[in-house]
């Protein structure tokens, strides 16, 4: 096995250090891709965090939850309420959001985890739909229904007033002790949380607890026969991943203090599943990679319009050009969801192990072609677990 050389604590620290550098240097190396503006990088960090948390549940235990968007929504609403009542400082908002979504996840996990397999998926989906319906109807006093919850100048914001920063002209922006959480500082704020989340995920993957979660995925029945109750482990994993989702939801509100119920829709739950699978479920870096790819392509694809397409395919003869543009037009702009659905199917059909596994396969093939049958640890460039 090559794994024992690669899974040393020192190796992990090196890898985590590399990851930190890559994340913090994003504004530099994303420049050539045209993705180095803060709004998009904030999305990378936030959805990366969401997917990393989801991976702790799905990647390790194999429980496929279709309701994680509900926790994202709970986190968002809690954060905005914290802005409204306490003030625009993001720290209490994040803490409250993590606690609230954790409690919510505990409750839903407590019920859903009584079943496994598809029953579990259906139950979580049902709970997410239920939260979505409630947020639109009865809970309107809390969620502000279709309009979405936003911070108003007339809100109490107790802490802000105590600090003497109560009266603000213009739109309210979250600020960390005077530093406004928009633009590049906003990205670095999210990036720090992403790194914290990533570090915790590293530790969980290497801990006995993580090993137990993996055992649940491999063979739950056998674990039960050995006299181990798997429920508490799965429950803990569920709550942890719910907290990650809540944190991600709160960060979304830190960068833009507005919470809407559409964040809890099943498509949002499906998106995080896709991110995790695309990158590689059960791998450390896969979910982050998947989130980056999805958000990047969403950004690229939805920005295209007819005009841009005509420019791209201008080199083709007229008749063919018109046909190509009309076909390609289905997949860009408003049609981004169609692309997403197709991508979803293609990934599941051809590459269920995700990009990371694809990379490993390619590198293994390259090694074999070179005739180096050693297959040693040194020839494995992929930092997957």
């Amino acid at each position, binding site marked *: 096995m090559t794994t024992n050389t690669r899974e040393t604590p020192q190796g992990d620290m090196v890898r985590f250090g590399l990851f930190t550098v890559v994340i913090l240097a994003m504004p530099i190396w994303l420049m050539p891709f045209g993705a180095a503006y803060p709004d998009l990088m904030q999305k990378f960090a936030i959805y990366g965090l969401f997917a990393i948390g989801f991976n702790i549940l799905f990647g390790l235990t*194999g429980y*496929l939850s*279709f309701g994680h968007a509900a926790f994202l929504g709970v986190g968002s609403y809690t954060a905005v309420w914290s802005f409204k009542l306490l003030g625009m400082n993001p720290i209490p908002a994040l803490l409250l959001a993590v606690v609230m979504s954790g409690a919510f996840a505990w409750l839903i996990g407590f*019920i859903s985890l*009584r*079943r*496994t*397999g*598809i*029953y579990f*998926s*259906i*139950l979580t*989906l*049902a*709970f997410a*739909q*239920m939260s979505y*319906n*409630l947020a639109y*109807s*009865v*809970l309107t006093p809390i969620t502000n229904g279709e309009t979405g919850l936003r911070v108003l100048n007339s809100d109490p914001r107790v802490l802000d007033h105590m600090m003497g920063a109560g009266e603000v002209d213009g739109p309210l922006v979250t600020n960390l002790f005077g530093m406004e959480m928009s633009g590049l500082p906003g990205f670095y704020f999210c990036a720090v949380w992403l790194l914290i989340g990533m570090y915790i995920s590293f530790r969980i993957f290497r801990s006995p607890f993580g090993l137990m979660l993996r055992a649940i995925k491999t063979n739950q029945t056998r674990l039960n026969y050995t006299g181990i109750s798997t429920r508490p482990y799965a429950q803990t994993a569920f709550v942890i991943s719910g907290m990650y989702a809540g944190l991600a939801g709160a960060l979304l509100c830190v960068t833009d203090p507005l919470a809407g119920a559409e964040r809890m829709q*099943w*498509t949002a739950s*499906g998106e995080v*599943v*896709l991110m995790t*699978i695309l990158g590689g479920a059960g791998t450390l870096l896969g979910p982050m990679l998947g989130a980056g790819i999805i958000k990047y392509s969403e950004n690229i694809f939805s920005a295209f319009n007819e005009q841009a397409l005509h420019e791209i395919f201008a080199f083709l003869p007229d008749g063919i050009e018109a046909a190509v543009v009309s076909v390609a037009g*289905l997949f860009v702009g*408003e*049609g981004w*969801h*169609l692309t*997403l*659905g*197709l*991508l*979803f*199917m293609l990934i*599941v*059909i051809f590459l*269920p192990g995700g990009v990371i596994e694809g990379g490993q396969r390619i590198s293994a093939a390259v090694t074999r072609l070179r005739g180096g049958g050693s297959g040693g640890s040194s020839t494995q460039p992929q930092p997957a677990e």
Partner: protein
Amino acid sequence: MDAILLQILNGLDKGGAYALIALGLTLVFGTLGVVNFAHGALFMLGAFCAVSVNQFIGLEQVRLDPDNLTPWGTPVEIREPYIVSWLGDTGHLLLDYSVPVSILAAIPVMILIGFIMERGLIQFFYKRPHAEQILVTFGLAIVLQEIIKTWFGANPLPQSPPDAMRTAADIGVLVGFDPGQIVYPYWRLIYFLFSALVIGGVFAFLQLTTFGMVVRAGMADRETVGLLGIDIEKRFTLVFGLAAVVAGLAGVMYTPILPPDYHMGMDFLVLSFVVVVVGGMGSLPGAVAAGFLLGILQSFASMTEVKSILPGIDQIIIYLVAVVILLVRPRGLMGRKGVMEG
């Protein structure tokens, strides 16, 4: 008493739709062992069959009438559906009855769609884990609904029932209530009868034909049926087609009740999965019973009297029932032992 009866009636049509979708889901799951998240999309495709048939036979020809002039001095346009100018009164009748007529078109279309789906995609997923089946059909559902969205637009397209069935029946009189107490739209009554008919047909097909016997045997023990030399794969394709037709017909007939839009499939799918779970995975009678039960419960929860005590209960009653059932009786109402327990 009359209020209770009225709510039961109100729940029947929705319950019928749930039962029909859940029936197909259970059939596919029981025989093929596949969890089909695209089943709601089949329901939606059925509804849009009705829309297309309506649009197709409603195609109008425009003639200019040179004798009549509008105030602007241009000839008056006379719009007349082609079908009326060709067939006269029969054409009018066809236009009026476009929803029931769509059934004829929907059956072959849905069989075709079912076959393409099963042969083109689902058959490669029999041996793969449930999680991957869920994910790939989920992706398919997104693709289908986005295609419908680009073709038909995002707005609901209301369809009308035939004129003769647009009114409501005063069925309370039949059972001895005063007139005007229990009034029920004809179309909902027809939907209930139609769903009962389809459900009866499916059960008769499974119970009385040799093919149905093989399918039932396959649900009980797929491997043994295969060992007996029966080409089970070929029958699976047919079963999938059957499930697609059932879901499609449920969608066609539902269009006058709920104007179809592109995301109606997903809305119904989530509820139908809950129905299947409540009824018991793999149990056909369970799916039907739970479908009607939950439909009726939902209509009771929408009563203003109930809503004033428990606001919002109509939005979540189905999920609450599912939670209680799963906690008290994890196998579902009529679930068989050993089918997807865990």
